[in-house]
């Protein structure tokens, strides 16, 4: 089994990610309710090593990784790759030139 840590930690991080993803009404979103219901259902078990519980925990950890990395990827994209190209004015300005103004428009 993978080294996953405490389920509570995964649950809290997952709920936090869902909050980032959903916005204002995150508590009513189906994902939030589904995750909470899943964790509650598998909480009570008499077995020491419950396979279903670990499977659910692994799934939760995977979903957490997905949400987190999508958010970080988008943030990196916005910061480094989202700006597109420079306009001709900006390019000219890089070397200190200005584009010529032609009063009648371009011929």
């Amino acid at each position, binding site marked *: 089994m993978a080294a996953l840590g405490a389920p509570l930690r995964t649950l809290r991080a997952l709920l936090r990610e869902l909050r980032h993803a959903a916005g204002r009404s995150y508590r009513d979103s189906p994902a939030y309710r589904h995750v909470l219901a899943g964790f509650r259902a598998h909480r009570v078990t008499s077995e020491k090593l419950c396979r279903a519980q670990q499977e659910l925990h692994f799934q939760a950890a995977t979903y957490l990784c997905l949400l987190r990395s999508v958010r970080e*990827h988008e943030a990196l994209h916005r910061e480094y790759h989202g700006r597109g190209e420079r306009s001709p004015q900006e390019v000219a300005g890089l070397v200190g030139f200005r584009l010529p103004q032609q009063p009648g428009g371009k011929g």
Partner: protein
Amino acid sequence: MSSVAMWRGCRRLWWAHSPPARLPRPPPADAEGGPVGSCGRRAYAPPAERKRFYQNVSISQGEGGFEINLDHRKLKTPQAKLFTVPSEALAIAVATEWDSQKDTIKFYTMHLTTLCNTALDNPTQRNKTQLIRAAVKFLETDTVCYRVEEPPALAELQKNEWDPVVAWAEKRYNVTIGSSTSILGPNIPASTKETFVNHLASYNMWALQGIEFVITQLKSLILSMSLIDRHITVEKAVLLSRLEEEYQIRRWGNVEWAHDYDLCELRARTAAGTLFVHLCSESSTVKHKLLQD
């Protein structure tokens, strides 16, 4: 590397996803209007992003499975089939993806939706045998079987990190894999391949699409199987897949806009693929035990 490859990737995704719910396409960019269009856009600028055109995302159950509703419109695949998934948890996750789009729809972040579309449309039109064959073919060029001889620190790192995974796979599937430093790679016996073919045949078509996707991302069949069998986490699998890169990063330094960008994208895709496989190949029932006091 980054900008051009990234735009090429976005473009591929863009044209692969015609607008869902049959809404009119946005007019094409001023492609023939000369180098600078009227609004200053270039001929080779990427098309304008779709704005978020829906307020609410909800799920409903139809005959074929669970469907996604954007406002009152039903979501459709790029080939205009109705978007149905067999598992409710998967439908919820897809709905969350659509719901988390703000202002514009960024298809390149919606990995689960992409996977569902691929499974529903099967654009490469492969049947189960072909998919399994493509997956097992990766074993011949599996990352964890290709070792270097120098630098010795990297060789040592590969031995320490990759040997346990190979040993686990050999024990779990009762096969021989081994590793090799030659350019031809390891010599995989036919019985090993057959074992994997038989094992993969036990998954349904949807799960197989997911498995093949994960293998393509991680470039390793062994890492993918250990991930799907829940032996290692997604982060660990991605780390093992990028072992040489991590070694070089530790040696020469990290470049955020390239290394972290790739890392996050690989993690996202691998996590999406793994989750997809698990959600498509399980059926869960909850048995309530009565507390007796």
